[in-house]
């Protein structure tokens, strides 16, 4: 093998470039494109499982029902007819829509969510390190990409020329920006520990053991180091991705479907896709920042590839969103804004200052 031997520390594009025997900028570009295509397809696959199948199955479990079980094992093959069905629906363009932005919004939403995954280290699968890029400002970049989504939502809401859509779009933006700051400030309290914004470094910083009880070592994941920040981040994250109890931008019983009311056919699929990738991105950020990235919880389980652990963690987050959906009512827009500004913001600052003091004292 020799020169072709892959090094797991290398990022995915470099590995691909090396495999193909390319170097320099052309190698970067080809490797980048192939790597990007791989990662995008991983996310598409996960969404395809989550949307038409897992979401129904999970909801059914909470509601004592059976749900999809006809096609394939456990009904898994429903994904294929569902995809065909959704793609082959007629696209209805309502009167008076603002055409360019109405068409752009369903592209921007999934794209922005996918883009976030560029900097997420997803662990290694055998010799392959699934990590596209590792810029030094990784954490800031992922928040920046994720928040592009609000632009898509307000575009969709405004362009649709529909009152429900407009209200949904406005609610989405108000909610996103109200919870953006607590989200970032809480993440910063973790950055104080790690001392870096680079994703791989944040993961590496959680690699040590926090303490050991009866031979079981608890890893120094920031969820265990600072559980308060973890809970705050979880709540802000739920609001950011618009899941119950913060699903007011879509609120079916009030504003029908919010910003996606007027979308049909593939445009609707793209919104759906974008939302699911957003949930997974939310889960990925949780995993990287608080749950040790792709690390196994205990050393004994390290034989399982990191990528599997990573997928388990983001699916755990997805499951959590569905769990909340089964049991929690949605809050009202005014309550949401007040919880955001008066509760979450203050708590996140308190958390930041306290963390800084504790870290300062200990060091």
């Amino acid at each position, binding site marked *: 093998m020799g020169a072709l031997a892959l090094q797991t520390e290398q990022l995915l594009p470099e590995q691909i470039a090396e495999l193909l025997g390319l170097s320099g900028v052309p190698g970067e570009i080809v490797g980048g494109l192939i790597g990007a295509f791989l990662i995008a397809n991983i996310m598409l696959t996960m969404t395809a499982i989550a949307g038409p199948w897992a979401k129904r199955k999970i909801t059914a479990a*909470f*509601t*004592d*029902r059976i749900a999809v079980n006809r096609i394939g094992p456990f009904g898994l093959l429903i994904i294929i007819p569902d995809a065909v069905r959704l793609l082959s629906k007629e696209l209805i363009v309502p009167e008076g829509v603002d055409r360019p932005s109405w068409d752009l919004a369903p592209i921007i939403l999934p794209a922005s969510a996918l883009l976030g995954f560029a900097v997420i280290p997803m662990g290694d699968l055998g010799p392959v390190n699934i990590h596209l890029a590792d810029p030094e400002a990784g954490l800031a970049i992922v928040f920046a990409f994720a928040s592009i989504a609000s632009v898509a939502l307000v575009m969709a809401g405004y362009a649709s020329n529909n*009152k*429900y859509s407009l*209200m949904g779009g406005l609610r989405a933006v108000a909610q996103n920006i109200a919870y953006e700051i607590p989200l970032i400030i809480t993440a910063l309290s973790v950055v104080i520990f790690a001392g870096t914004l680079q994703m791989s470094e944040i993961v590496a910083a959680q690699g040590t053991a926090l303490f050991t009880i009866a031979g079981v070592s608890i890893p120094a994941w920031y969820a265990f180091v600072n559980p308060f920040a973890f809970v705050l981040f979880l709540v802000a994250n739920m609001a950011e991705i618009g899941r*119950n*109890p913060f*699903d*007011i931008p879509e*609120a*079916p*019983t*009030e*504003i*029908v479907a919010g910003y996606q009311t007027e979308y049909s056919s593939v445009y609707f699929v793209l919104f759906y896709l974008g939302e699911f990738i957003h949930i997974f991105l939310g889960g990925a950020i949780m995993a990287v920042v608080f749950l040790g990235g792709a690390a196994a919880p205990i050393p004994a389980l390290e034989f399982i590839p990191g990528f599997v652990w990573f997928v388990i963690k983001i699916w755990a987050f997805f499951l959590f969103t569905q769990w909340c*959906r*089964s*049991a*929690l*009512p*949605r*809050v*009202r*827009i*005014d*309550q949401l804004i007040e919880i955001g500004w008066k509760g979450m913001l203050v708590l996140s600052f308190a958390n930041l200052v306290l963390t800084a003091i504790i870290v300062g004292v200990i060091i």
Partner: protein
Amino acid sequence: MSLEEPLPDTVQEQSADDLEALLGDLVIGREEHINAPGFVIRPDTVQESLRRLRDDAGFDHLSCVTAQEYEDRFESIYHLKKFDDPTQEVSVVVPADKENPVSQSADAVFRTADWHEREAYDLVGIQYEDHPDLRRILLPDTWQGHPLSMDYDQDQPQIVALREHANPLQEDHRSETDSDTMFLNIGPHHPATHGVLHVKATLEGEQIADVESDLGYLHRCEEQLCQNSTYRHQIMPYPDRWDYISAGLLNEWAYARAAEDLNDIEVPEYAQIIRTMGAELCRMAAHFLALGTFALDVYGDFTAIFMYAIRDREEVQNILEDLTGQRLMFNYFRLGGVVWDLPEPRDEFFENIRDYLDELPEHLEEYHDLVTGNEILQLRTIGTGVLPPEVAKSYGATGPVARGSGIDYDLRRDDPYGYYDELDWDVIVEDGCDNYSRLLVRMQEVEQSARIVEQCIDLLEDWPEDERNIQSNVPRTLRPDDDTEIYRAVEGAKGELGIYIRADGTDKPGRFKIRSPCFSNLQTLPEMSNGEYVPDMIAALGSLDIVLGEVDR
């Protein structure tokens, strides 16, 4: 405690002559209805008469307004009751000119008259003077003629045009403030309107500036259907279709009670117990659905609570299916009794009910964990959709809506029928007046219904075999005397469900009027939601627990 008759010193009682003296020269004639004395008054003294009866005699509940046309005149009947003692009733009969039927509106005295008079105008064609907004209510605005009037051609087809709705606040928005409003149609095809209700909402930002319900999408001419059916058999299947969400037996009882009193039919005690048991099972099923849909409105998706409530409801429906042969459209009551005795083997049937009742407390506990104990739900429902008791009374709200506003009014206790006064149970009253109270009332009423059912099956189990008489001897054709009139109400799942019947000497009613509790309850929606947020309006609508089949009839 609950079954005590209201204390005599708190509720004044007046004889018919007292009332006549009170009304004085306003009275131009007397009528005798089976349920109450009737006073004929001139059409321009409606407000004065009703005000005297309300303020000086305590008749604070305008239960129903019935309009009808005779050969020589139009007539509106105001059925008045007391919230404190609904057995005291009086009918105010207002004849109107045949050529030019104009009558004074009672809206200034009882707000509930607003919609009832609009319905009377719509279907019969009486014009109400001083009415704030006399438009059609059940039929489209462009409809020609009044279907229950005598000269109406029932066979003539009509084309009804769809029109855009005008923003009711549009005219004045520039003069008052510079902010703008948005007119929004919520319904008829909307996830939260419980059927085909159309709510015209004027929004200001996220708040409701004005809301108006537009009814009639599910109008099926139920009154006229009943007028064309025979007393003995053909009417009974229809009440199941008013409040169709499994409150069927409660509805059937409303017709049975009115028709039995009209024809002097006795119901055997054994049949009364079966009726009571069946009706309370229906009430449980209806309240479970109300709980589920309310959760659906507040939680947003078809979440766990909705499914759990449906599960419990299905259990009740299984029992009802064994008893009646259907899950929703029971057609189980007959005049003078019920159609079938309990299913054989009886032990198994009792066993099923007991099993269900034994599990019920655990399930209710689960709902309390899931719903009422949930802080976000409390945040959402406590203090929203407030309906003060005086307002509720003025709008004629009844049932859980009234009891959630602290009005202690339940016809099962206050105007006893069936076997209720022999049993031990409580009327649930909560005085929070908000969405949360109405939710609590329903959940506790399920417990009380379970108590009633349990006592009923105890009685039925021990009933001697040779005395199981399920039906009294009723002629195959019933022809009540010409011009006898009766108004009788029972406590339906949503409130006071009343039936007015005027016999015309044939085997079919001359006028059949349904007083639907949902119709009156829905009228309170603007009171509860103006100035509130859109989600609270949705929650308030959910807490009213309307069934459009009963609103539109």
